[in-house]
Each structure stands twice: as C-alpha cells, then as structure tokens.
C-alpha cells in the first residue's frame, strides 16, 4: 500500500492558495444536513468546533473535562509564533517555514509547514479580534519576543499565560456557537472507540464519566484533536489526564501512527525531587531570552553544591561553564530544545549536575538583572547608581517580564529565583509523532481527521518553541474548515447514521468488555504503580538518548509489564458511577501498547535526528547524525494485533524548497 500525502501540485508558495480556490465546496444548505464529531476541546478542537459551527455544520464536541476550558493547551506559557515581521527584522513566511523545517531536523513535510507559516499571521488577527489580551507596547502595538532556534522576534505573548488566553479565546468562540445551537457540547464524556461503517469513520463510543453510561454517537465524519501522549513516560509536563486513548483506539481501527518515537524533551523544567512526584513543571522557554545556563567547571564544585557545602553564589565567574554559549556561539542560550536538553545531559553525565540527584543545571538571571537595572537607572536619569539600586531596578524589570513564572518556581521549590539561580533539568514535554495524516489532515481511515498535537504533520523530529499553539490554531481555524469539505462534499446525499447499526453494537460491546475485564481483574496492584513502572522503562531506554540494545530490552520489559498488568492490576468501584480509577486503568492499558511501538519505531530508525538521539549515530562532537539517504521518510505504523509485529509503511519526504543540510546552531 502506498501512502498518499495528497500534496497539491504547483509552486510551494502557491499550493495552498490554489488548492483552496479549486477544492470542492459544500453548499450552506447541505452543511446543515451534515454532522461532524469533534473530540477534544484544546486549541485545535475548540477552534475547529467553533469554525465548523460558524460554517453551519452540525457539530458535536466531546471533552472528558468538566469544562472545555481545562484542556492542557491552557498551560502553554511562552507564546505563539507568526510571520508578521512587525519588528522589521527580516522575518517572512519563508523564513518561518525554513526555521520550522530546519528546527524539525528535516523530517517534516514541506507543503504542510509552508501552509502553517502562511496562515500564522491570520491566527494573530483572529485572536486579537476575539479579545486575547496580547502584550502591547506603549504605542498600543503588539509586542514580540524571541524563542529558541530562530534569530528574529516573532513570538506574540500574553505574559507567561499565552496558552490560557488563546484557549479562552477559542473556548469563547465555541461557546458562542453552542448558544446559537450549531455546536452541542458533551462535557465529562470520554471517547473510548471510533466506529467505522464501510471503512469510513462514522461515529464514536463515549463513556459518560458521571453516570458511567456507554453512549453511541454518529456523524458523517470524526475529527480527533485529543493531544499528545507524553504521559506514556508517567512523569512529564503534561496534565495528569492527558492520554493516548482516543488516538490509540483509532490506531486499533486501522489508522496509522506516524513517527511515534519523536518526543520532545524540554530543557527547562523543575528537576525531579522525590518518588511520590506526580508530574514535572515546565519553566517557559522564554526564560532563555534572559537566563544563562551554566554548571561549575570543576567536578569538585558540583559535588560540593550537591552535598550542600557550597551554593551557586560561591562559584566565581571564572569557574562557571556557560556551556550553551561556549558550544553554540551563534544561538547561545536560545538553541532549540533538543540541542539544549542533550547538552544538559552531557554535563550531568560528566558529574557536573547541581542537585542532589545529579540531574540539574543552573538557569541564572543575574546578568539580565544587572543589565536591565543599569538600563532602567539610565532611563530614570540616575547617575552612578549603586549595586543595590541596580539590582532592585533590574529585578523589577524581570518581574514584569516573567513574574508569574518566578512565582510558580518559588511556590514549588521554596527558593527565590531573583536571589539564587533556578535549578532546571530536561523533561518530557511534547510529542511530535502522532496519527498519520495527509495534506487534508485526514488519516488513512476515510472520514477520520486528526488535528493539533494529535497528528504528526508539522514539527518533524523536533518542535520549535511557540509553534504548538500556532499549529493547533492553524489546523482548527484555517485548515480543517476547508479540507473537511474534500470528504464531506462526497457525502451530501448520505443520510444521518443510525446508532443501531451493527458496527455501533460491536464497538460498544468491545468497550464494555474491556472495562468489565479491568474491573473484574481483582489483582492487587494499583494502576498508578504500573504507570510509574512503564514510565521508568520509557525514560531509561526511549528517553533523551537511545541505543539498539536498550530499545530491544525495553520492548521485552514492556511486554512483560503488560502481561503483569492484565493479571495484577486492581481497579476499585464499578462501571456505572463516577470512577476515575477505571478511566486511568483504561488509559494506562493503551499506553502499554503505545510504549512498545515507540521503542520499535526508535529501533527501526538507524539515525539521530531532532529529539530522536541514537547513541550509535553521532558526530565526533556528539551532535545528532542524520542519514538522509536512508531515513528521509515518515514512518507510519499499522498496528496488526498485540503480539504480532506492527507493519511499517514509509512516506518518502521530498525537499524541493529547502536544501538538506547538517543542522548547525554554532
């Protein structure tokens, strides 16, 4: 079987415009007769539901949260990229496209990324009109800042809560459609299966999480916007309830999972501190605009700090190693995430970590505080200000920029980052891999679409900062409203589907059986304990660096753990009630299968690229060594059945506008 990307013909810059003006349309009258199911209400899901409702389709939208506004997009801190070139610093659609393809280490589709860059500017306009309170300058114009892997300022932001503000914008737009009757909202409903009729996605099975009732919902097509699967690692910056179940259920029904091993490890998170820890907290990448990353040059100093005999402030300037600035002078502290994360690991592996576990480095704001303090004193006309004044003024500026992040850091760690450097370490943050989709964002299952982090399409092997928000909203506001028509224009004569169809019957039965089996298992160990063990295996063998031996071992370990899980797990309560343990048990069961596939994907990709670092494939300087001749493809996996090896399909990546080069940030 040949995977068809369905990339439209023509020049790269013209493709989307031409395609849009020639694609089949659905008339307003027919739209009213067509039903669409959207699963997930994060940026991608909410923006899609709102836009499709505005167009006149009958939309049913599902979220497992109590309110659509809780989706994890809300936690994105730093900002959203857009090629506006408001700074006059040489930005353009092409440059955003180029940065994203390069940042993704040349493992994404050119045409998709170009379209993303093209619509990025519209997203800002849309959000401003919805009332998103972006940061402004004194003149009333929109403000920008920089993110990793780029040399222009194209990131728009709303303090350190950009995701929250954008999500609320999309949530409000969707709420308006709910009030108009175009969108029906099903909160506290979790999708547990997708229903295929004659090979096309025609509905879902969902569980009402309050009553426990299993419900059938039909539609002419199904859109999944259910986020990423970072929680397969147990500890990640994802929210506790983020899971792969909706996407994985699609995989079990024949959808392909693409590049599952491409996971993003974010360099600046608060380090782990204990066994009971339930999640990791991100410190926004925007902090690297002003924070300098360092470790002590001497291993003895690092040891002394770990043992509490010294503090960061005891290490003189000449004994500090600002390793990112040293290794990557062109981008310095603002190298992309994969590069910064690996560099931190290298230092910690060399014994220079500065927290008791050995896994932590400093992110220091002292230079920025001094610089801003001097500048502020100057603008206030203060002559020869003393060090304390400079410090005080500088801290004020830093507070204005990053106040909420500093506060959050202090709440969690109990340390004041204005006075001592932050301690940080990489943690799982985002998954570039996801359901395979074509240019229309349609999976290989007709009528089943995937948007946002749930799909694989735009970030290659590494996502640049402030691009997740951009992609989620691009997919929902500006891509799916057009491309869904390519499928639905052929369905205008299709009547509504009855949920009495045998396909619904079968799917519901399968769901009920799975849940009953978990409940009847009567083992002795908690779901949580298994999830933790799975996470440890994933982090150890399929985390920041991977090798053949480890991956093979991990696959065996996961298989064993999975068997043990289905024998030993204990799920309290019953099916017909509010039962969070049962929800979790079902999600962890799916993670157990996904984990194995991630290892298999990592094992089959005999190269290093972006977030996928295979120890066997590195340059002499320890940088990722790509193999474009053999691996410039998307790995799309078909899940056959547990026990049998999944089947690999390759979609070759063609680069016409960008020359394949070694990615260098030196």
């Amino acid at each position, binding site marked *: 079987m040949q995977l068809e990307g369905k990339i439209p013909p023509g020049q790269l810059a013209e493709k989307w415009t031409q395609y849009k003006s020639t694609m089949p349309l659905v008339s307003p009258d027919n739209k009213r007769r067509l039903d669409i199911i959207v699963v997930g209400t994060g940026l991608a899901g909410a*923006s899609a539901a*709102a*836009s499709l409702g*505005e167009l006149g389709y009958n939309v049913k939208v599902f979220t497992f*949260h*109590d*309110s659509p506004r*809780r989706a994890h997009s*809300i*936690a994105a801190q730093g900002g959203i990229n857009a090629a*506006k070139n408001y700074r006059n610093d040489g930005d353009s659609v092409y440059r955003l496209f180029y940065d994203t393809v390069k940042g993704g280490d040349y493992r994404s589709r050119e045409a998709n990324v170009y379209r993303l860059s093209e619509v990025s500017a*519209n997203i800002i*306009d*849309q*959000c*401003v*009109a*919805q*009332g998103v*309170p972006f940061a*402004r300058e*004194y*003149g*009333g*114009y*929109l403000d920008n800042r920089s993110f990793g892997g780029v040399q222009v300022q194209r990131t728009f932001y709303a*303090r350190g*809560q950009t995701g*929250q*503000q954008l999500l609320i914008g999309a949530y*409000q737009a969707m*709420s*308006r459609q709910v*009030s108009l009757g175009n969108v029906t*909202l099903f*909160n506290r409903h979790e999708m547990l299966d997708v229903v295929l009729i004659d090979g096309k996605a025609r509905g879902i099975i969902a569980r009402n999480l*309050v009553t426990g009732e299993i419900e059938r919902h039909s539609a002419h097509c199904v859109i999944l916007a259910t986020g990423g699967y970072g929680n397969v690692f147990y500890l990640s910056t994802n*929210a*506790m*309830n983020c899971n792969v179940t909706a996407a994985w259920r699609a995989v079990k029904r024949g959808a392909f999972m693409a590049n599952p091993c491409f996971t993003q490890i974010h360099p600046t998170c608060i380090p782990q501190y*204990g066994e*009971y*820890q*339930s999640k990791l907290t*991100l410190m926004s990448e925007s902090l690297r605009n002003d924070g300098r990353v360092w470790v002590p040059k001497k291993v003895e100093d690092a040891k002394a700090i770990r043992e509490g005999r010294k503090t960061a402030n005891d290490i003189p300037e000449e004994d500090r190693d600002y390793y990112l600035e040293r290794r990557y002078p062109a981008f310095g502290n603002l190298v992309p995430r994969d590069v910064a994360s690996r560099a931190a690991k290298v230092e910690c592996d060399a014994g220079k970590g500065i927290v008791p576990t050995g896994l932590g480095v400093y992110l220091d704001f002292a230079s920025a505080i001094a610089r801003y303090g001097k500048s502020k004193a100057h603008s206030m006309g203060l002559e020869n200000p003393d060090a304390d004044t400079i410090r005080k003024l500088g801290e004020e500026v830093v507070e204005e920029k990053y106040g909420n992040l500093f506060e*959050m850091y202090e*709440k*969690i760690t109990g340390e004041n980052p204005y006075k001592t450097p932050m301690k940080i370490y990489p943690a799982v943050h985002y998954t570039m891999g996801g359901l395979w989709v074509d240019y229309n964002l349609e999976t290989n299952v007709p009528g089943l679409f995937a948007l946002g982090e749930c799909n694989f399409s735009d970030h290659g092997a590494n996502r640049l900062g402030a691009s997740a928000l951009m992609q989620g909203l691009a997919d929902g*506001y*500006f891509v799916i409203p057009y491309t869904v028509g390519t499928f639905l224009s052929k369905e205008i004569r299709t009547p509504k589907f009855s949920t009495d169809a045998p396909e619904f019957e079968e799917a519901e039965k399968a769901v009920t059986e799975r849940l009953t089996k978990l409940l009847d298992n009567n083992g002795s160990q*908690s779901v*949580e*304990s298994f999830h933790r063990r799975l996470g440890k295996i994933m982090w150890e063998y399929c985390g920041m660096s991977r090798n053949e031996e480890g991956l093979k071992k991990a696959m065996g370990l996961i298989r064993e753990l999975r068997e043990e899980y289905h024998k030993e797990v*204990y799920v*309290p*309560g019953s099916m017909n*009630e*509010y039962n*969070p*343990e049962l929800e979790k048990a079902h999600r962890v069961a799916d993670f157990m299968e996904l984990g194995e596939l991630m290892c298999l994907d990592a094992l089959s990709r005999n190269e290093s690229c972006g977030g996928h670092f295979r120890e066997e494939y590195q340059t002499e300087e320890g940088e990722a060594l790509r193999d474009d001749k053999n691996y410039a493809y998307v790995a799309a996996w078909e899940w056959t059945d547990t026990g049998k090896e999944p089947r690999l399909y390759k979609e070759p990546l063609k680069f016409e506008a960008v020359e394949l080069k070694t990615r260098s940030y030196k």
Partner: protein
Amino acid sequence: MKLTLKVWRQKDAKDKGRFETHQVEANEHMSFLEMLDVMNEQLVSEKKEPVAFEHDCREGICGACSMVINGQPHGPQKTTTTCQLHMRHFKDGDTIYIEPFRAKGFPVIKDLVVDRSAFDRIIQAGGFISVSTGQPVDGNALLVPKDVASKAFDAAACIGCGACVAACPNASAMLFVSAKVSHLALLPQGKVEATRRVRNMVRQMDEEGFGNCSNVTACEAECPKGISIENIARMNREYLCASFSSEE
C-alpha cells in the same frame, strides 16, 4: 510528617455525605494533591475506594482542582491553587479538614468533585466577542493602550475554578462573571456588544441559582489568581448603563 485528614465522602448528589478520617504520612516537599495521591494509594492497597477529587494540570492554570481546605477554598496560601499548595505550609501532627466547594450552583457529583458547568452556560450566554473565523483585520489595525491590555489581562487571568463562589456566604458568582465582563468590555474589540453581553450574562448567572453580592469580598481574598473586586464595580456600572440603554 504525620497528618490526620478529615475528608468529605459523598457517593453522589443525592447522598447526605459525611467526614471520614484518614492518617497519612507525608513530607514537606509534596504538593497537597500528591499528599492526597498517597492517601488514595493506601486506600487502593486496602481495596477501598479512593477519594474522588478533580485535578489536571497541577500547575495552577487549568482550574480543575477545587476543594475547601480547613474552611478556605484552595487552602491557606494566598493566590495559590490547591495543586500548587505545598505541604511545607503544614506541620507534623496537623488535622486537616477537606471538603468540596459548597454552593447551590455547584451540586456535588462525588466526594470532592462538583459540577461547575453553570460557568460554561454563563459564558455561552454572552461571554464572547461575536467574530467569526476569517473576518478580522490586521492585529495592529486597532491599537490598544498598554495599560488597557494589561488591565484586561488581569481580568482574563481568571481560571474559572469557582473558589469565589465557594468563598462567598451568598454563593455569589459575581467575581467570575465580572472578570469576563471586564476583560471584554475594557478592550475596544469587545465594546461593540458590551450592553448585550452584560445583560445576558447577569440573567444567566441569576438563573443558575447563584446568590447576590453583599460586598463581603471573600471572593477576592480567596481567588487563586488575585482577581480584583474592582471588576465587580465595573460590571455593576456596565449593568446599570445597560439597563438605561435601549440597545438590543
């Protein structure tokens, strides 16, 4: 540290509910929810049903966590959600009372979990700007003074957790509703339909069974995001103007 927890258990909305006592061994680095995780793990290991509580991001931004700790929504720390509250603010031997948010507008679903969908319906009644995808002009076409954007942001920072309702002796939702009214009324983009918005949102708020505001200001004191009661004053002004207006 050894703690005694008095936790509210309630099977469903119809159940009367009661306090249940549990002993937990915690340490000061844990977050409050991690301490509850430990308690739940214990319960599961004894094959008992764990306490249901709502939580998700554990970063203080999603607004899912919702409990009253020793009589205060989100506990004793100012401007801190339950998930960001750490055990270092408690001491060995403490007895901690944990209850759900209590309000007519927030019926209990189970244990500490309440139904806050009334907030969604208030937003659906008018908490938006009527703009469809594709309509807008350039983001810089309409300038917004820095301090106006900043004030709008302060109001928009509300996480919709409902602590304001739980804190209020009247179970009033004025702080939540006024934060949305203010956020949108302050911005030039939102002024166009300000009259309609405030009328519709207030009407829905009343229909949901939330009480009236009698200036107790407990909402502001307990708000984990420090939303100011200035917003209530602004909403009252907006509402008064709207009631004199003949606009639809």
